[in-house]
């Protein structure tokens, strides 16, 4: 083994495959990564301080900007936090609509995440294009109910802003016709492909105990074999009435994360079908009429969390009795999932490092806050 000199490379902040302005300070020995330090904050806007000068309702659109891939899920977490703090009832139908939106969000996020992951592996956009096609369909649905594609701002304290439109359900049913075909196609592209297996099998292994110690969440945690899904572990909303399986990996490498994401799309579709079946008719009301939007919660603190597609998103609110939160803390999944990146990449090649980062599926809007 001949002695080689180590080289320091800055991957990013402007780099094709760091999702957003994100920098990895890599020390490579030849092509092997010996050390990696994630450096970020380029997108930091002190979201939490902005939230402290806003009223509770005014923060709702800001939560959209956290993880702009699944704004609905962020809305859900924040709405739940405030409802717990004030004690607002959410009508049945509103809960179902919320779950419907969040599961749609899960599908579109995973479709996009898988596409971007394969792009990082060097495919030329095809898988991403297929994912984006389905994503566009779902965004059309969001637009028709909430008025915006990405920054939905759809949830309100005690319900949702608008009831489902008349043409929503037929379009959703059409979408569910296409969904299995899409997922199977994705699986045929990803699951057996020898090249992809070589790139993903045994890459970026995060063992079970280490995953727990790093407190990663979402598909990364489940890919490592920990069956921890908040929808199942601490059921919120109406998830205790819905049947769905929790897919977990066995090794904890990139391949397991891919498999888990594919399976989660299937489970989300399953949930959506149940929701359509159980959805109460319109007199359930899409929002609690007694719920005031300009809330003045009593003094106290609350922590509410949901399972967003990327993992556990939690909001810790402290109220001083005024109409603005005294403290507003976001526990962002992408941010925490980045913690083990350095360890996951150590000992692998430069090419694998990019793939591992893609398999974590981060959104810088949420990491930098």
């Amino acid at each position, binding site marked *: 083994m001949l002695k080689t000199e180590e080289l320091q490379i800055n991957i990013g902040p402007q780099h094709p495959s760091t999702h957003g302005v994100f920098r990895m300070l890599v020390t490579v020995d030849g092509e092997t990564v010996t050390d990696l330090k994630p450096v970020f904050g380029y997108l930091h806007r002190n979201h939490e301080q902005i939230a402290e000068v806003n009223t509770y309702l005014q923060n709702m659109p800001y939560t959209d900007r956290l993880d702009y891939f699944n704004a609905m899920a962020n809305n859900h977490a924040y709405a739940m936090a405030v409802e717990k703090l004030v004690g607002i009832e959410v009508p049945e139908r509103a809960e179902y609509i919320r779950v419907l939106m969040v599961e749609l969000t899960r599908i579109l996020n995973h479709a996009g995440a898988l596409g971007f992951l394969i792009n990082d592996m060097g495919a030329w956009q095809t898988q991403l294009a297929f994912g984006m096609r389905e994503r566009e369909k779902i965004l059309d649905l969001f637009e028709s109910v909430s008025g915006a594609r990405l920054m939905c701002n759809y949830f309100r304290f005690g319900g949702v802003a608008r009831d489902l439109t008349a043409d929503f359900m037929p379009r959703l049913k059409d979408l569910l016709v296409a969904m299995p075909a899409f997922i199977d196609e994705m699986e045929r592209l990803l699951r057996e492909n020898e090249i992809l297996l070589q790139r993903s099998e045994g890459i970026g292994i995060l063992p079970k105990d280490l995953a727990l110690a790093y407190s990663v969440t979402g598909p990364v945690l489940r890919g490592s074999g920990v069956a921890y899904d908040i929808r199942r*572990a601490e059921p919120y909303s109406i998830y205790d009435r819905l049947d769905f399986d929790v897919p977990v990996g066995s090794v904890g490498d990139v391949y397991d994360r891919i498999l888990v994401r594919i399976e989660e799309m299937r489970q989300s579709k399953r949930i959506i079908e149940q929701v359509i079946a159980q959805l109460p008719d319109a007199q359930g009301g899409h929002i609690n009429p007694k719920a005031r939007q300009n809330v003045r919660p009593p003094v106290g603190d609350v922590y509410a969390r949901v399972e967003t597609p990327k993992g556990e998103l939690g909001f810790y609110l402290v109220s001083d*009795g005024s109409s603005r939160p005294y403290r507003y803390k976001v526990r962002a999944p992408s941010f925490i999932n980045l913690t083990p990146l350095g360890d996951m990449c150590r000992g692998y090649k430069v090419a694998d490092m990019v793939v591992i980062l893609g398999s974590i599926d981060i959104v810088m809007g949420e990491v930098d806050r």
Partner: protein
Amino acid sequence: MPNVSADDLRVRLGRALPGVVQEVYPLKVAPPPAQGHAPAAFVTGDTLVDAARVVDAALYLRDVLGYAYLSDICVVDYLTDGIFEVVYRFYNVEGGPSLALKVRVPRENPVVPSLTPDWPGANFHEREAFDLYGITFVGHPYLHRIYMWDEFEGFPMRKDFPKQGDKYIGEDE
């Protein structure tokens, strides 16, 4: 699924590690208004532990009670009470609600022992707390600013940080 309530935790923790649990004293979160009645004081229901021995308490949670999943570390700046409160939130992988440990340190020299050696996942949480609140975590292997650039002065999330017209933003903002 296991379900240890906060009071339950306080009792068991007090029994297992005498002297760790502190008495919860009420906080007047906001300064009392000029007129009108002041809002009620804030008495937390969570367990308040001694700052110096938070690691022991956390290890007890992990090893004895099985709350191994450190979900969140959050700092709250109670300016009027002159303290920082650090909130550690633990979950059990079996499921169930969370358990929170709270630590109160004076605003003058906020020093807390670091959990990172035992929970690598606490790394970024503590760096964020250091960056935005200036809380020093003793024993943290790499305690640097994480969001702000390294030359930044001051801790922007503190309640007394100038919201306008500081040297970075400029008067016009």
